[in-house]
């Protein structure tokens, strides 16, 4: 859209240069003349048709009587009384000087055949005129558009390079599309979740979560010391770049509402696969080329991919667990990017009540609660909600502390999740509308 236009990849040509106004008008006039000609022809043929039907009527009526008293034309101006005999004998002109002797009935047959031929001619003429009219309207529109100074923008669409091109030409656009995909993905997963929440699956997820929790706790113990350093490295720029992110979050929210719409139309699980496959590829160029705001966003993502192999710092463990969580649910997702992970978390908040009711996975909830701040921090920056600052401040310190604090009150998380989840649906709608208008 704007990004693509700003990229300068396409060409902009004024309409007037391609189709000069007077030329277009001339063409329109010429087509109009042609239409007039055809109209005349059509009128002529229609006349023939009516004549033909009249003749058929006459011929079919003539043999009703043995003879008819008529006025016979004599020369140009005179008539004399006469009588028509042999009312059932006709000399029918077949065309080209050939005549045939026919009875009235046979004559009517010939005439009806002729009528059919005329009808087909009328039809073809009508179709012809329709085409010409379309042409004329096109020329008219072109002429008026050229006069108005419309421009044509052409841009080649290259499927393979599109990601790179976006990341180079329009960062925001790249991010937008990126997020769009991941949101879509997350929503799909959410859907899947809702659908697939059967008992056995639930048990499997729980066991998997327990495993992950154990692993995480071990990792936590090991790396408590390294926490603070890493924390500051990740979190502070995050807070500093809130302004930058506000733009993107607007887009993400819009994208979310978009993807919500999409969800109904594309519920197929196949579409899920694409973002996963695409993400690893684009992650590198994006990190290299895009600005700090983006790289900052992608920093945790990188860490996530790391933690999938080796469990690292605790602050990221929340992410990791969420990733694993969504991964285990999606089953197919082997490389879930942070974006989708984050979004999956936020979207899973909608279905959190199901988790919360079963206290067995408190740990996992806690960890997700850890990730909520990260998300909600970004969203809070844009939506500037009164309830968020507490989160931001707590988030600014350490993830582990936060994690622990939210370990105890499960109901508090509910409030949090309800906040974040409730704030999301209401906001994007209005934003989206604003963007639309």
């Amino acid at each position, binding site marked *: 859209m704007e990004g693509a236009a700003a990229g300068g990849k396409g060409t902009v040509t004024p309409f007037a240069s391609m189709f000069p106004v007077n030329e277009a008008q001339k063409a329109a006039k010429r087509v109009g003349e042609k239409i007039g000609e055809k109209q005349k022809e059509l009128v002529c043929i229609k006349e023939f048709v009516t004549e033909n039907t009249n003749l058929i009527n006459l011929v079919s009526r003539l043999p009703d009587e043995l003879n008819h008293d008529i006025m016979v034309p004599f020369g140009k101006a005179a008539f004399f009384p006469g009588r028509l005999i042999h009312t059932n004998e006709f*000399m029918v002109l*077949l*065309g*080209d*000087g*050939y*005549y*045939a*002797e*026919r009875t009235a009935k046979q004559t009517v*047959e*010939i005439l009806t*055949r*002729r009528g059919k*031929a005329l009808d087909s001619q009328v039809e073809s003429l009508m179709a012809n005129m329709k085409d010409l009219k379309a042409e004329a309207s096109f020329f008219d529109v072109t002429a008026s558009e050229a006069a108005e100074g419309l421009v044509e923008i052409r841009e080649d669409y290259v499927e393979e390079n599109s990601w790179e091109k976006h990341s180079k030409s329009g960062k925001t656009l790249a991010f937008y599309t990126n997020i769009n995909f991941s949101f879509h993905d997350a929503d799909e997963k959410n859907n899947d979740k809702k659908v697939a929440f059967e008992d056995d699956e639930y048990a499997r997820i729980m066991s998997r979560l327990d495993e992950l929790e154990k692993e995480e706790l071990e990792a936590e113990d090991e790396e408590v010391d390294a926490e603070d350093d890493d924390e500051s490295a990740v979190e502070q720029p995050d807070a500093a770049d809130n302004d930058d992110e506000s733009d993107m979050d607007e887009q993400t929210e819009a994208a979310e509402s978009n993807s919500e719409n999409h969800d109904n139309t594309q519920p197929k699980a196949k579409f899920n696969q694409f973002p996963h496959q695409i993400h690893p590829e684009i992650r590198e160029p994006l990190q290299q080329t895009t600005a700090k705001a983006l790289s900052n966003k992608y920093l945790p993502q990188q860490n996530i991919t790391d933690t999938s192999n080796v469990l690292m710092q605790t602050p990221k463990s929340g992410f990791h667990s969420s990733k694993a969580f969504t991964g285990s649910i999606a089953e197919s997702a082997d490389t879930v990017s942070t974006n989708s992970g984050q979004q999956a978390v936020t979207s899973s908040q909608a279905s959190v009540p199901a988790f919360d009711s079963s206290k067995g996975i408190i740990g996992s909830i806690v960890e997700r609660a850890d990730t909520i701040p990260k998300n909600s921090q970004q969203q809070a920056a844009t939506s500037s909600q009164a309830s968020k600052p507490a989160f931001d401040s707590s988030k600014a310190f350490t993830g582990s502390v936060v994690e622990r604090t939210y370990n105890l009150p499960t109901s508090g998380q509910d409030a949090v999740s309800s906040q974040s989840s409730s704030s999301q649906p209401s906001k994007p709608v209005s934003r989206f509308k604003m963007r639309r208008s």
Partner: protein
Amino acid sequence: MCLLTLFITDIAKNHQVRKKYTIQLGENELVLKELDLLNEGANVYKLIGPVLVKQDLAEANANVSKRIEYISAELKRLDGTLQDLEEKQNSEKDAIFKLQQRIQSFQAGKAKA
């Protein structure tokens, strides 16, 4: 330029003749169809000048077929000539365009000097 106008009038004339022939072809096809539909004993006449001359049905049929053949051949020939004429016209147009360009460049050069 004179040649070009000649071509244009030729093409226009050709178009007219073509139109006439196509109409005749349609008419003859119609006649043939009707003649085919006539039964064996029907009387067929041909208008020659002011009189109707009685003709054999088979003969009339053959005549009309022959005529259609002739007209088709004629139409084909006309198409060929039309194409030829249009080619000539285009080449002539190109030549004229080039000449005009040369004149323009020449004039521009003159104006500069």
